[in-house]
């Protein structure tokens, strides 16, 4: 199989995630979509790793997973905190940092 298929899938997954991040307003879903984007990128990394025949890409993919795990921890923690304070679960409502 040519690498193009892998990259196409990767791009589709990434794009789906990006669309999700921009369009959805529930922070939980936004986080999920972010994961989707990261996994799209991971797929591309592993595909390139296969293509070149060395493990650098896979190592990078492992690093991305680690970062993703940290990010989910913090993100979910924040969502729980928001929920506990009875704030609306909606990213558009949380805009206190506007200029």
């Amino acid at each position, binding site marked *: 199989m040519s690498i193009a298929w892998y990259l196409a899938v990767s791009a589709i997954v990434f794009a789906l995630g*990006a669309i999700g*991040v*921009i*369009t959805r*307003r529930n922070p939980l879903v*936004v986080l999920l979509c972010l994961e989707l984007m990261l996994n799209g990128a991971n797929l591309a990394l592993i595909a390139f790793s296969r293509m070149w025949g060395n493990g650098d890409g896979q190592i990078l993919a492992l690093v991305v997973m680690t970062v993703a795990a940290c990010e989910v921890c913090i993100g979910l923690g924040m969502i729980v905190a928001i929920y506990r304070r009875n704030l609306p679960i909606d*990213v*558009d409502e*949380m*805009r*206190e*940092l*506007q*200029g």
Partner: protein
Amino acid sequence: MSATTYGWLVLAFPLLGMLIVSFGYRSLPGRSAGWIATGAIFLAFLAALGALISIQGHSPAHRQFVSSLWNYAVTAGVDAQMSILVDPLSVFMILTVTGVSTLIHLYSIAYVDEDRGFARYFSYLNFFVFSMLLLVLAANFLLLIIGWAFVGAASYLLISFWYRRTTATRAGIKAFVINVLGDVGLVLGTYFIFKHTGTLDLLKTFHRARAEAFGPVGSENGDLIAGCMLLLVGAFAKSAQVPLHTWLPDAMEGPTPVSALIHAATMVTAGVYLIARMHPLFELAPPAQDLGAIVGAATLLIAGTIGLVQTDVKRIIAYSTMSQIGYMIMAVCVGAYAAGLFHMMTHAFFKALLFMAAGSLIGAMAGEQSLERMGGFRRAMPFTYGCFLIGGLALSGIPPFSGFFSKDEILLITGEQGGWHWALYVAGYVGAFLTAIYTFRMIFRAFHGQPVPEARELEAGHLHHAEVPTNPATGEEEDTDVGFPGPVHAIAERALKMRVAMVALAVGAIGAGLLQVPRADYVVDDFLRPSFADSHLYETHTKNTLLVTGLILGTLLGLAGIAIAYRVWVARPGTAAVVRARARPAYVLFVNKWYFDELIAAAVVRPAAAAGRFAQDTFERVFVQDTLVGGTTGLIRAGSAAVRAAQSGFVRYYAGLLMIGVAGVGFYFLLQS
């Protein structure tokens, strides 16, 4: 010790006195600040005597000593050194300055005894004397300019010593501004001279000027003439010559001993000294000399006529100083250097004496200075009257008082020049006549006639005190706080220190003329000769042809002036009003001081103020404030508004922007490759 060591000591003592008084005034008990300051000046006087003895020990050809403490900057073309020049001229000056200043300090201890600015007063006074000594001892233009500027600053501090009086602060500012004008003239003049000689050192400058740095002798180099004229501007401003004289009468706002100091020793004589010191340059620039002589003669006449009609005692004496300085400036500009400096010395004695006597008189009047309100103090204040009379006779040039010999010598040498100098000669004698009239007008009005209530009170043994202290210039009531003169006044009859100082000056005013009696001795001439060895004007005069004429003429004019004053103000008291009514236009002109203040206001002050307002309204408001400052802030404000608008707070919006950005960068690199 060498002569220059004494010279450094002369500088060191007043500086030390100033530092001790100004830094230690908290821990100085009682009136010790005054004694320390007086002692410092007295020690400087002793050091000046040491310098005199030291230079007299050398042969006349080797009486110029230069000593340098350190170099400020010595590079190609600049030789700025901390150096002093001790020669007969500077020794003559430091002797006069320190001698008279010591007595004025002594007088001041009694005069400002009750003033709450006592220590401040004496630190200023020491600084003033130090500045003047620096000026006269400077061996290069740089130090001369520093001393010159210090004198201006010190005069500002002392004229506005009673700083709560608005009239005093305004007078101080006026004096300072006009003096700064003179400083500018001095600095620019130095530049014109330095451009050609390439050295700041005075002796080297004169040497190079003689070695034709300004072209051959008689060629009248334009730069040299411009330089000398600018030096004259400096001299005119400092010595209160027309038209830069208006600060001097206003400077009477200061305490009376300060007026004595300014007039006798430390300030107005600086211009005379400057011209005498720069004589090798002036002799190469005859137009500058002529200008100086004409201005001197004009000043002595103008000041004399104004003095005739003023009613403020101190202002009359101030105008007489202007007039006498006019003689000196005229003298040093026509080559009568020794005569001019001799007159400076005798003038220092009798003018300080007159001011001290006036201070005592004003004390008896509880601060009132107007002649209109004085009268009949002869019996109440015999000592002050005597001193005033001695000073007045010396000022009027009555033999054998000191002013007689010095003034007549100036006019003698001027007359012997021939040509148009005859006009100066005549002006000088007219001035002498006027001097006698206004001096004795003052004496007769203050001391003769019916005693005023203040004089009666004093005769009964009680010194008059004002209920509420007032400003004599405006009549407004004053506080007795620091910054005001306060209610207590001193008179010589009650203060030994004042009497001691006045007696010493009276002896000088009577006897100093004996230093130079025509055909008998020429002490001053001989003493100063080494400083003027290179002058082609010094000692070329025979001093014989006009001698007897001049002496008789001077005496007669002086006596005639006194006789007229006696007739007008004592014998027939109504005459003054009649004369005033007959010569109305002249009276109006004189009483308005020839409209010099108005003239300067119209020619300089108001145009400058109008230009300032115009610049403020157009350039500053429109260009600087609105365009430059306002433009910058407007730009930043608009930029920040744009950036702020982008900060919407929508997370999704940020994410979208981020993606667009990253995609844009990606596309850019894709298209590049």
